[in-house]
């Protein structure tokens, strides 16, 4: 059929099964918005900033496993979206971001709202396209979705000049993709898998090192089976939380800079690391030369470039985690769980020596208590998003996660302002579950305009602000490593968060006792409108334990021991 480029965009989104688009209109994308107005197959959620549109689509994607879609205009619309693109790229989130561009005849003339969008997005997307002819549009959109969700997932950016969205051309979406140069390697090499299983069987202290790739490949339940059938303990990265349930006996906890003592010690003492969809990030490894120093490394990853990038892999296996784990499960009889009993005891002892905990020794609420308390009240029923900073680490440490895709956070890029819009995306994807955003008094101001979106579109995100009047994580480093010179991190001057929420039509609570917190949370869940719960917490609480930047995992700063009451 002969239709306009703008109509093609709509038809392609419908064909891809898209039910929600997050976006913000503007001059160069108006033709497409005109077609959005005319259709009723998918909902469009108008955010109040383009960055939030992309974060919301990320949250939607992470909670649902589907490709997130956002739409923006040229120039500043696009540049505002760049942070979201970069965030999705770092955390391998499948996304298609469509931007308007000035008409072809104006490209290169410094036209109004013109920017070299594909030039900018090249380094922060998996792939990008500048569409120069509407005849290419069906193929490009189909490729964009395919590339976004296959292989190592990631954001794909499609930049469409205004005259191309007006151009009439033939639309046929029922085409075979011919991507000769893009063929992701899904199936692991069977001989290599067998060799890896032999190595595991011969090891004394094997350790699973689970990364975000487990969640991305929807392999969490297969991984649980593998962990249980082998009896091998497992550590999780920040991105993998929820793979194992928090109460799983074989779960040693999160590793890395703010990982548990047991997880980091286990990684330091293991003799074979089984890395599944993890990429040996510097926040995980600490000092590389001393990371898992005496261990052989099995590295399963769909991205060959991740393997042996930082730590040499003795058993490299390129493939989809789910596929490889299924193959490993077939060979599980090679492994005798009994052999690892002493190793499991060793790890238990680590945990008993320095368990992950905090002291309730101040009048003010401890931020960690808030996290635990939300876990007790909502637990499995809530999806947890976060911003970036101390509250994020506390949420990772103390929330009782029970399932994959329950945890939505900005790991690689560490984007403050991610949490609120992401939590809206989560709510749009799974409306029947409560969407919580743990945030700080610094982060929340970076996208608080989204109160308007949340009110308008009835996305009742509960934002729990762990308010310490500080840019807390930077303050912590200044306290520890900069001789307490708290340069520009004191946020004592701040808005009235209750009034702020109310000004947009949301609901606000100011909380300084535990009782008030319980009441506020229960009320917010009941009222079912977007909420700010401003919790006054202990100002100088540090995230502990901690591996100082560039230090070795086994050299942690630990929580001071106190006599228990």
């Amino acid at each position, binding site marked *: 059929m002969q239709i306009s480029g703008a109509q093609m965009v709509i038809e392609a989104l419908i064909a891809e099964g898209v039910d929600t688009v997050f976006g913000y209109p503007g001059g160069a994308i108006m033709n497409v918005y005109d077609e959005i107005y005319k259709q009723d197959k998918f909902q469009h959620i108008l955010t109040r900033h383009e960055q939030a549109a992309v974060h919301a689509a990320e949250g939607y994607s992470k909670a649902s496993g589907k490709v997130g879609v956002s739409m923006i205009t040229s120039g500043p619309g696009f540049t505002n979206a760049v942070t979201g693109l970069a965030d999705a790229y770092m955390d391998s989130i499948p996304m298609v971001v469509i931007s308007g561009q000035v008409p072809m005849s104006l490209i290169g003339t410094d036209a109004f709202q013109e920017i070299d969008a*594909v*030039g900018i997005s*090249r*380094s922060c997307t*998996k*792939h990008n396209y*500048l569409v*120069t002819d509407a005849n290419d549009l069906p193929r490009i959109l189909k490729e964009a979705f395919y*590339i976004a969700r296959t292989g190592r997932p990631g954001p794909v950016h499609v930049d469409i000049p205004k005259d191309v969205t007006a151009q009439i051309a033939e639309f046929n979406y029922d085409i075979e993709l011919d*991507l*000769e*140069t*893009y063929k992701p390697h899904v199936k692991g090499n069977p001989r290599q898998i067998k060799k890896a299983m032999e190595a595991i069987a011969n090891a004394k202290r094997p350790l699973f090192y689970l990364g975000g790739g487990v969640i991305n490949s929807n392999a969490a339940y297969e991984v649980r089976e593998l962990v249980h059938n082998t009896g091998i303990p497992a550590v999780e990265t920040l991105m993998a939380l929820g793979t194992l349930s928090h109460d799983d006996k074989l779960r040693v906890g999160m590793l890395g800079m703010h990982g548990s003592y047991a997880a980091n010690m286990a990684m330091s003492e293991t003799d074979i690391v089984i890395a599944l969809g993890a990429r040996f990030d510097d926040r995980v490894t600490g000092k590389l030369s001393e990371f898992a120093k005496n261990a052989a490394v099995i590295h399963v990853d769909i*991205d*060959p*470039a991740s393997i*042996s*990038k930082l730590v040499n892999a003795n058993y490299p296996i390129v493939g989809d985690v789910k596929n490889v784990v299924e193959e490993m499960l077939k060979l599980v009889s090679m492994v005798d769980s009994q052999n690892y009993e002493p190793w499991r005891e060793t790890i238990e002892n680590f945990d008993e020596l320095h368990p992950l905990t905090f002291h309730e020794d101040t009048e003010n609420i401890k931020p960690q208590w808030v996290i635990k308390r939300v876990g007790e009240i909502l637990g499995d029923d809530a999806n947890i998003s976060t911003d970036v900073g101390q509250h994020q680490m506390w949420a990772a440490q103390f929330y009782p996660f029970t399932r994959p895709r329950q945890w939505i956070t900005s790991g690689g890029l560490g984007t403050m302002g991610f949490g609120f819009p992401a939590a809206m995306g989560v709510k749009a994807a799974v409306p029947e579950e409560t969407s919580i955003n743990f945030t700080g008094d610094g982060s929340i101001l970076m996208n608080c305009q989204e109160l308007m979106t949340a009110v308008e579109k009835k996305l009742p995100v509960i934002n729990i602000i762990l308010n310490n009047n500080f840019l807390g994580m930077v303050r912590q480093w200044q306290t520890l490593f900069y001789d307490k010179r708290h340069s520009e991190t004191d946020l004592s001057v701040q808005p009235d968060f209750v009034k702020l929420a109310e000004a947009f039509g949301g609901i606000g609570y100011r909380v300084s006792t535990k009782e008030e917190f319980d009441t506020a949370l229960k009320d917010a869940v009941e009222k079912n409108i977007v909420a700010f719960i401003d919790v006054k917490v202990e100002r100088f609480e540090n995230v502990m334990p901690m591996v100082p930047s560039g230090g070795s995992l086994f050299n942690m700063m630990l929580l001071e021991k106190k006599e228990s009451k």
Partner: protein
Amino acid sequence: MNDNNERRVVSVIVVNEASVLSRITDLFSGRGYNITSLTVAPIPDSKYSRLTIVTSGSVRVIEQITKQLHKLIPVLRVYEHADLVEKEMALVKFPITENISDISAICDAYNGKIVNVGNDVVITMVADEPKRVDHYLEAIKKYNPKEIVRSGAVALER
């Protein structure tokens, strides 16, 4: 990362489409890899182009370069050459007043010749291994070359 910096030649077959060259060069600059030289031209009768990149780095860096290149969507193949035939061309402009027969003799020794004679200048062309081109350029220094242009290396696996 700079332990044992080794010179390597990498050939990349890419779909011949808009901005593909920036994808390659952005990757090198973004990840802090070196480019000593880069040549690119379409492969006859195909939709592909061939790039020859001379780079340097440790074994790990070179391995990352090939993997990261391969990860780019329009990249069909990446060859990290071990056993290869490698050639580079150089054009040099001399004043006509220099000793032309000496220059011509030197060119002979490096697979080259005089390719243009004008009123004031002569232009020579040599094509040889990059190392030998270095030697040639050293040898002709005393004839006051006015301009030198090197093509960058091209290579084929033996």
